[in-house]
């Protein structure tokens, strides 16, 4: 062994290199406060390792990026852990970098001869920010898509080159394949390359200048401590610190279940929860204070000035007063950033529309995973196709858009937004379910806004019938009515009620027979299994079934339904207000079929 190593050393001289790397004198001995640089390097190395592994499974294209990240996250063994580490280590890198820079400013370590190294550090900060920005888009989910649009829009207001810069960055006029390939090239090639060069330069300069022990005259010894060496004293402390960083990251990954992945990006789909990563939130909030054309001040001029001032700190720091100014300036900026961040989150939390949008985003994220795991899987056209054909996703939107001006759904507009006033037409949550029908036939409820309260039917025969005849029912008749409800509800064959319908088969049969009886009297106005006297109300055969509901939404004025007595319900089908597919999605959603 020894011989082999000797031979290798003879041919390569690795021992001298190793010694050069490890035997670094540390004036005043090893210290915990010298660990930050090493933890940062560690974080970067972790990003390289996990990044390369992610790269091996990632596909940068508009119909494949989300899908491949879904695959990594939900199918690949340990993929969620891998991606989780990459995600949270990015946060850790940000924090460590800012801590490191703060430490340098506080210690005055940016002063001569270390100015250049301070700038290297600053440049590193921007590269890390760039990595974070480009990485945020790569999963191609709604969150990354819309948040990144804000960032590239800001790039486009850069004086002179703005529009060209934006176009070159996103690879065209619009987001698409080339946006992903370009962002990926930046994220995995250009920026990491620059990072390596800068870190190498930074470490080289650091070795050249040695650690900063503080404002002591050269040669003074720290509390009489003897000089230490990097290996093994400082190395041990560094390693322990790196382990602690890793433990913190792992804790976050496991606690949160990994990095988030929203629903796939869709330019035609509103996304009201668009927010950048938390360390960009202050900028996001900052922009709200710059009306109209002052945006350039907030987005470019002021940040540019702040960065210039920071870059000039080494010169200002030559004077005692200048150093104080630098400290104050850094403190002010950090306080400002903290305040803006806090304001941003506080305002969002207090905004019901934002909270609702966030819930919708989470629901959509869960839903798409369910669909992708479903029997059909993800088609080559991408996961968006799944969402666009999904009643649970499209139903609420269609409802909010086309129905909620008259109807409510569980008191809201279908999307979870509270309605300022009650709607004129019925609340359709649980339509045709036992519970819904029981309420309809309840004299107390039928004329409330939940059912016919706001419509012409409030003064119609149905309401009168319920309020006079049913109100007078005795206990036996009430029992019969309950069976009728079960029978009628069974017509809908609602998936959620399948087990109940199955269990109550006998009662349902009884109810079906009772429905036609005179004591209940439904068939005086409604068709039921071919029996009715006058066709006044909607047919009850197949009430609430897919076929019935499709027909009803299509055209409520059809003689099968309200005929001439229809009150304001548009003919969505014949008038082509809704396409067949859209009606199908609405029906599927209302019936709970997904």
């Amino acid at each position, binding site marked *: 062994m020894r011989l082999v190593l000797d031979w290798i050393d003879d041919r390569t001289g690795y021992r001298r290199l190793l010694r050069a790397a490890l035997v670094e004198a540390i004036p005043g001995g090893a210290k915990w406060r010298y660990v930050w640089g090493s933890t940062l390097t560690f974080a970067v190395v972790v990003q390289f390792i996990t990044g390369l592994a992610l790269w091996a499974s990632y596909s940068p294209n508009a119909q494949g990026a989300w899908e491949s990240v879904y695959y990594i996250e939900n199918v690949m063994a340990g993929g969620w852990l891998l991606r989780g580490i990459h995600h949270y280590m990015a946060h850790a890198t940000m924090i460590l970098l800012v801590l490191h820079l703060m430490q340098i400013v506080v210690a005055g370590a940016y002063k001569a001869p270390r100015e250049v190294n301070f700038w290297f550090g600053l440049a590193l900060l921007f590269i890390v920010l760039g990595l974070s920005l480009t990485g945020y888009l790569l999963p191609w989910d709604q969150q990354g898509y819309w948040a990144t*649009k*804000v960032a590239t*829009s800001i790039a486009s*207001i850069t004086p002179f080159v703005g529009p060209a810069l934006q176009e070159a960055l996103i690879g*065209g*006029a619009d987001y698409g394949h*080339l946006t992903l390939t370009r962002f990926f090239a930046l994220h995995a090639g250009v920026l990491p390359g620059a990072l390596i060069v800068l870190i190498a330069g930074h470490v080289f300069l650091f070795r050249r200048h040695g650690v900063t022990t503080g404002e002591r005259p050269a040669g003074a010894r720290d509390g009489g401590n003897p000089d230490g060496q990097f290996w093994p004293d400082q190395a041990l402390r560094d390693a322990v610190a790196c382990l602690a960083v890793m433990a913190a990251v792992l804790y976050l990954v496991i606690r949160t279940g990994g990095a988030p992945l929203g629903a796939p990006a869709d330019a035609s*789909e509103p996304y009201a929860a668009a927010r950048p990563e938390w360390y960009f939130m202050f900028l996001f909030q900052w922009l709200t204070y710059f009306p109209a054309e002052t945006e350039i001040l907030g987005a470019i001029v002021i940040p540019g000035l702040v960065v210039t001032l920071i870059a000039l700190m080494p010169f200002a720091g030559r004077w005692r007063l200048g150093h104080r100014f630098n400290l104050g300036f850094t403190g002010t900026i950090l306080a400002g950033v903290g305040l803006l961040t806090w304001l941003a989150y506080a305002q969002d939390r207090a905004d019901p529309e934002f909270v609702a949008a966030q819930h919708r985003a989470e629901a959509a994220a869960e839903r798409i995973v369910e669909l992708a795991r479903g029997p059909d899987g993800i088609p080559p056209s991408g996961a968006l196709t799944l969402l666009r054909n999904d009643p649970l996703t499209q139903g609420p939107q269609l409802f909010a858009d086309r129905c909620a001006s008259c109807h409510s759904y569980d008191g809201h507009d279908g999307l979870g937004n509270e309605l300022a006033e009650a709607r004129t037409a019925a609340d359709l949550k649980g339509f045709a379910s036992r519970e819904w029908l029981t309420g309809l036939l309840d004299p107390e409820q039928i004329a409330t806004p939940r059912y016919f309260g706001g419509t012409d039917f409030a003064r119609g025969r149905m309401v009168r019938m319920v309020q006079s005849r049913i109100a007078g029912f005795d206990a036996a008749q009430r029992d019969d009515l309950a069976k009728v409800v079960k029978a009628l509800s069974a017509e809908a064959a609602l998936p959620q009620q399948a087990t109940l319908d199955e269990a109550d088969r006998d009662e349902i049969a009884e109810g079906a027979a009772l429905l036609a009886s005179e004591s209940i009297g439904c068939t005086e106005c409604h068709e039921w299994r071919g029996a009715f006297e006058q066709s006044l109300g909607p047919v009850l055969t197949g009430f609430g079934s897919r076929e019935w509901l499709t027909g009803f939404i299509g055209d409520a004025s059809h003689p099968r339904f309200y005929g001439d007595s229809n009150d304001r319900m548009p003919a969505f089908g014949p008038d082509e*207000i809704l396409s067949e597919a859209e009606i199908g999605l609405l029906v599927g959603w209302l019936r709970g079929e997904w």
Partner: protein
Amino acid sequence: MSEKPQAAAEPQVAEEGSSGTAPAPAPRRGFLAGMGAIAAGGLAFLAPVWSGIRAALEPLERPPQDTDLVPVAKLAAVPDDGVPHKFRVVMDRVDAWNTHRQLPVGAVYLRRTGDSVEALNVVCPHAGCFVNVAADRSRFVCPCHKSSFDLSGAVNDPASPSPRDMDTLDVEIRDDEVWVRFQNFLPGRAEKEPVA
């Protein structure tokens, strides 16, 4: 503390030593050789660097995609209530190496009063977010930086970050259909400039 630690100084000394032992060329010849090396080396890199830059800037040279009107909705599907309703814009779209037939590429708000229809792009002129109709349907609000617009798309709050009103689009009613010229516009400036 500007002393150089020993460890870092060592390799440097070694390098200087090795170059120092090489025989020095005659000054004039050395100068010419140096210039030659720089020129030849630079030339060798010219083609790759140039073609790389060309490729990076290629999107700037691409001809703009066509902006013909496309059908967006049946007229009857736009309620005659003066309130904006959202419609997907589905059209053919070339995305680099793919040609998509009937791809949802964005959305518009259509607002109908009688038989006239106005169309607004849903994209916020501030920084590109998807503008929402407020829950009470009285105005538009952008969920990002809270720009506020009235139902015709005009900025209605001077504190709005948006530099201009929401972008109107050309509309035509053909038979019973609403056709719209779907375009996106550069964000963050007062004038409405279509993205190329």
